[in-house]
């Protein structure tokens, strides 16, 4: 008997009772739909986290300076005005694991333009900051070392800030004022979106560090610097090198606590990603249970079908069907049933995912390979749960089956 004949017979036999066929695959349909919808939601969430990590990068550190402590006792110390700047340069020069380092300073300020004004945090940075944070311009250009040297009155502006200050007007070449000093907008930064903590990465205005210190911060010492690790170097190595260097530069004795804290921003994102993964796994597992229930449903209906068709089995055996033929026939029916359920379930899951993304607003993603996986998985469920009924059918004695009432 060719496989096509077997499949043909199965389809024919399932087609004889369409309502029952439809009802019996319902469990599988719901199971597969639930799994597909969950995976779609999970993949969407995963993508969001991944995009966030990609946006903020995962190879950079923030170094904060605090007062000196020894054994928990705070010792007030004057911070030299150029400390972070000198430290940053030293780090970039001496730490082999560091690609770039930049001092930063951030102060709150009222920013005014011809079209609007609002209060936000403004930042002074080295041009290397753009490299560290992988920040590019969508329009215009970034400021470079020349502008740093000349203390040029220029700035680069994030998308959200641009909207606040200039509305629909192209901000490029426009002026904005901070502390009554006018700066020219020379670049609009690409969007980094909103972080999982709700912070808007695009609410940012960046000035050359030198100009910023003199004209905005009033030489207020900066307390933070950013450093990025070289490609392929573990962040922990960079962290350790920076720590050793800074302790040396700040003349800390062995018993002194660090006067600074090195923060690994990506750790937060990674923890976030991990939490998302766990949550997704949980959701998908629960959905899989419904698939299992669907499989048991298939087994049940196949057992009923075998009992109901005992005479047919007897007849087939009488006219020459081997046990293997009967096994193949019923197994094939279960598999076709489940495969069909998988297909319909995939479409259903895809529909649910669409509804979730349009109505609830969650990001979802359904890949086409998932259709293949869904059908393959449903087929496997069919094989597994269909085997026992099919095996039972194939073991019937022809005479008992024929006489079955």
């Amino acid at each position, binding site marked *: *008997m*060719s496989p096509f*004949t077997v499949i043909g*017979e199965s389809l*024919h036999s399932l087609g*004889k009772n369409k309502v029952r066929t439809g009802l019996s695959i319902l469990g599988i349909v719901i199971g597969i739909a639930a799994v597909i919808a969950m995976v779609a939601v999970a993949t969407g969430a995963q993508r969001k986290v991944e995009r966030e990590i990609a946006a903020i990068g995962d190879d950079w550190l923030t170094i904060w300076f605090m007062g000196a402590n020894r054994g928990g006792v705070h010792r007030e110390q004057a911070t030299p005005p150029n400390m972070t700047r000198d430290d940053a340069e030293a780090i970039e020069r001496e730490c082999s694991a560091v690609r770039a380092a930049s001092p930063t300073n951030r102060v709150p300020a009222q920013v005014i333009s011809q079209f609007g004004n609002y209060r936000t945090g403004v930042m002074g940075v080295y041009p290397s900051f753009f490299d560290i944070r992988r920040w590019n311009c969508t329009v215009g250009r970034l400021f470079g070392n020349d502008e740093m040297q000349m203390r040029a009155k220029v700035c680069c502006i994030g998308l959200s800030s641009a909207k606040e200050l200039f509305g629909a007007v192209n901000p490029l070449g426009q002026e904005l004022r901070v502390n009554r000093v006018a700066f020219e907008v020379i670049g609009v930064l690409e969007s980094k979106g909103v972080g999982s903590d709700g912070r808007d990465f695009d609410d940012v205005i960046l000035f050359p560090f030198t100009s910023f210190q003199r004209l905005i911060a009033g030489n207020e010492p900066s307390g933070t610097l950013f450093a990025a690790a070289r490609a392929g170097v573990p962040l922990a190595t960079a962290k350790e090198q920076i720590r050793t260097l800074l302790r040396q530069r700040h003349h800390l004795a062995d018993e002194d606590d660090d006067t600074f804290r090195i923060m690994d921003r990506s750790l937060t994102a990674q923890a976030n990603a991990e939490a998302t993964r766990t949550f997704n796994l949980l959701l998908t597992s629960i959905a899989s249970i419904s698939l299992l229930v669907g499989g048991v449903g298939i087994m049940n209906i196949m057992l009923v079908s075998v009992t109901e068709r005992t*005479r*047919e089995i007897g*007849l*087939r*055996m*009488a*006219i*020459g*069907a*081997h*046990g*293997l*033929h009967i096994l193949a026939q019923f197994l094939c029916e279960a598999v076709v049933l489940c495969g069909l359920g998988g297909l319909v379930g995939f479409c259903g899951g895809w529909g649910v995912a669409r509804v979730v993304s349009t109505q609830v607003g969650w990001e979802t993603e359904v890949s086409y390979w998932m259709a293949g996986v869904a059908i393959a998985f449903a087929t496997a469920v069919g094989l597994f749960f269909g085997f026992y009924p099919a095996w039972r059918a194939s073991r019937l*004695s*022809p*005479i008992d089956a*024929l006489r079955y009432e």
Partner: protein
Amino acid sequence: MDAALIDICDACKAYHLDEVEIPAVRGVTLRLPAGQFMAITGASGSGKSTFMHLVGCLDRLDAGTYAFEGQAVEQLSRGQLATLRNRRIGFVFQSFNLLARTSIVDNVALPLTYQGVRRRERHRRAAEMIERVGLSDRSRHHPNQLSGGQQQRVAIARALVTRPAVVLADEPTGNLDTTTSLEIMTLLTTMNREQGVSIVLVTHEPEIAAHAQRQVVFRDGKIVRDTEEGAQARRHAGTEGAGRHLAVEAS
């Protein structure tokens, strides 16, 4: 050795109901030459149906021997028995046993699917057989659209489509009226004559059995009358004599 199609010797078969053994066939010896039309009659419970199942290789003997075309049936596996039934034996049942919601041509072609015959060839041979039973105009219909007699003709076509050596018909007219029964018997007789297929017919109606060349009557699991009993006995005596002769020679 003459080629008997079926050679059953001292066949016994019992059923077990709640540990009570109920003997159904108790030492039946029967030879069926190829091409013979034989009827088995007897009251219900006489063991004729059970004997029929044994002949049809649907069930195994408890004791005795069974040779089909010279082959010892007891030695065949389940699968080999299925193949034997498929290729050499055709079945006609009282309740037709056609597949519902399946076209006549597919019903008739069913035994051929288990031989691995290709679809086109299956349908060609099935159509040929359906024509011989006179239902060509109904081959696309389903069994429930046919009368009882027509359904039984479909079943006969299905039994004959594989060109078997023997057709076993278990009460083929049991569900049919007299006129239709006559039609069916005529058809079976024609097939026996034209195709040379042996037929073993089980019935409890003497007038149906009268269509056959040979009548065998069962009672309490034994043959009590055989219209060819004399011939059988003579043949048996002959073989036994030969056996004894050989035994003497050997000693």
